[in-house]
């Protein structure tokens, strides 16, 4: 780079910077709009990412898990006969080969569950008492009584809403009546040993768990079960772990490994739908900012018509003047970007510790499996996605004012009012 061009660049930059502050108030107003929208975008997008993360975590950790090993027909057609042979030894071997405790076998069946007063049709889950707490948050959410420890015990754990509906308490009896795997009658009497409260209405109302060995005896399952739940330590590690598990069970052709996306297709769809609707709002915000930049820059070009005419008469090329206007916008947008993201990040960072809630949020949160406080989740993407787009759109808005300079006639321009 020759010193001449270098100097030219710095002159251009210095001129642009000085031009900006010829109208202090106007520049600050435009920058203010950018700061405000960037702050809002950083905060909202971080909050959104945070709530999605929580939605996924809470939903998956309460029951589904990150992935499951199933008999291949089970996911499309969850019938009691689509089961896995020797499920407890298989779960044990996966546990050993992965070196992870977050593996638990389950059985699923349907039964009519009756107390003295009421009856409900329920999905009954057989779980391994020792390993279930590693893959699900439910065992830790027991509000009354305790989680079972004996794999053969004739005991049941139910949700708080179900307990209220059945009008039973810890220590009471429930009878289960359904069909076994061979089509025979499955009937049993169990004692309620624990009542959990997850805050997720669907689970609290319709979930009941039995120890797996008793479950197998009750439903004539032999040594079989329906799925093995496997959790990764973090959501981002799921694809790798899925490959490892698929490798371990590859010898058994009837088995498949399904990740949470397949098991809970509604979850990702709900997130995508929410994201789309949020982006409509963001687009309005961004377009308004872009127009305010366009307005400012157009005004500043028009009011300097005589000045630009004189400069062109002195031999300055229109491209140089266009670059000047563009640089002015660039500087202004950078200022908005820097201040806006900084303020937004500080706000979101603060709230990611203390949490955030607003009146009436609880009702909605329960519906989406969210806790009653939300915590924004900060990442490079959540910080720079919104402000980056505002920045790009502002630059785009200065194209029109800059282009106008190419059609300026020096003599006419110098005579302009």
């Amino acid at each position: 780079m020759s010193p001449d061009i270098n100097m030219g660049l710095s002159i251009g930059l210095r001129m642009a910077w000085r031009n900006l502050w010829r109208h202090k108030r106007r520049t600050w107003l435009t920058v203010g709009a950018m700061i405000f929208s960037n702050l809002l975008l950083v905060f909202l997008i971080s909050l959104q990412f945070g709530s999605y993360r929580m939605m996924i975590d809470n939903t998956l950790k309460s029951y589904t898990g990150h992935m499951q090993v199933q008999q291949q027909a089970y996911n499309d057609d969850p019938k009691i006969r689509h089961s896995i042979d020797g499920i407890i030894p298989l779960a044990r071997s996966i546990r050993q080969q992965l070196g992870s405790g977050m593996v638990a076998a389950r059985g699923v069946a349907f039964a009519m569950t009756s107390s003295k007063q009421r009856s409900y049709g329920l999905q009954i889950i057989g779980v391994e008492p020792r390993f279930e707490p590693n893959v699900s948050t439910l065992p830790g959410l027991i509000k009354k009584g305790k989680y079972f420890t004996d794999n053969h015990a004739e005991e049941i754990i139910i949700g708080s809403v179900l307990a209220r509906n059945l009008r039973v308490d810890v220590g009471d009896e429930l009878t289960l009546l359904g069909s076994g795997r061979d089509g025979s009658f499955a009937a049993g009497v169990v004692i309620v040993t624990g009542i959990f409260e997850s805050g997720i209405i669907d689970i609290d109302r319709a979930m009941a768990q039995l120890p797996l060995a008793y479950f197998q005896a009750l439903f004539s399952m032999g040594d079989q079960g329906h799925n093995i739940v496997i959790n990764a330590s973090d959501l981002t590690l799921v694809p790798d772990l899925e490959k490892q598990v698929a490798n371990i069970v590859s010898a058994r052709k009837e088995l498949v490994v399904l990740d949470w996306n397949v098991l809970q297709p509604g979850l990702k769809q709900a997130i995508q739908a929410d994201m789309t609707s949020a982006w409509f709002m963001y687009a309005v915000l961004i377009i308004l900012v872009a127009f305010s930049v366009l307005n400012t820059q157009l005004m500043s070009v028009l009011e300097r018509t005589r000045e630009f005419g004189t400069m062109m008469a002195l031999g300055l090329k229109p491209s140089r003047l266009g670059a000047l206007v563009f640089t002015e916008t660039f500087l202004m947008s950078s200022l908005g970007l820097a201040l806006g993201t900084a303020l937004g990040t500080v706000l979101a960072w603060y709230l990611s510790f203390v949490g955030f809630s607003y009146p009436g949020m609880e009702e909605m949160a329960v519906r989406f499996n969210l806790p009653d406080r939300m915590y924004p989740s900060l990442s490079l993407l959540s910080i720079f996605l919104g402000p980056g787009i505002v920045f790009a759109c502002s630059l785009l808005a200065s194209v029109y004012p800059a282009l106008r300079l190419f059609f300026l006639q020096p003599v006419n321009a110098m005579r302009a009012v």
Partner: protein
Amino acid sequence: MKHLLVAFILCLFSLSALSATQKPRDLIIQAMNHWRGQTSYSEITMTIHRPDWERSMSMTSWTKGDKTTLVRVTRPKKDAGNGTLTKDNNMWTFSPKINRIIKVPSSMMNQSWMGSDFSNKDISKSTDIVDQYDHSLLETHEENGHRVYVIQSIPHEDAAIVWGREILIIRDDYVLLEQQFWDQDGILVKTMKAREIKNMGGRTVASIVRMRKQETADEWTEMSVQDIQFDIDIDGSLFTLSNLRNPRQ
């Protein structure tokens, strides 16, 4: 001679006029009465067929009037003693394994009965169709020397019934040949069909009936009647919860 001929022709005429004006609702009532009698006792084997397995169960059943039924499983040994009692659209089930009687809640009435393709409702409310539906005669035709009536029954607007309509095919001797269950989108869901008709207990009845889901061709449940007796003397105490628990008969 001439008079006799006229009388004969008149008689023929009036007979056909009679059958043409058979009300569809009456036909259905007749068919129900024909099948159940005032009282009945029957021994039935139920076979549940699935693509990869099959299972048979034997049971004894008693009926009285059109609203009371007691069914008790006799075979296989594992399930013997299980029973259901139906009385005025209420259903109770008893299982000797837990020695308890449980009332089946109305929310469970559309669930499968004993793992079969029959629902609890199919078993308990078999005469609902008379009162809760509007009936119309779709067509009549001759088949094997019998007149056959095809009746469409559409549930009343306010009736708590999952079906959009049912189609019943009834022979002139009141044997129910076929019953189709259509959902509210006009799709045929399942069909119950008589596969064997013979004389039993002094009546012509469908002795083998198969219920088949439309979607899955290879899944069905078959009821085959081994023995049936009509209008026998049955003590009212048979249809009580205490008898469901402790069979006296």
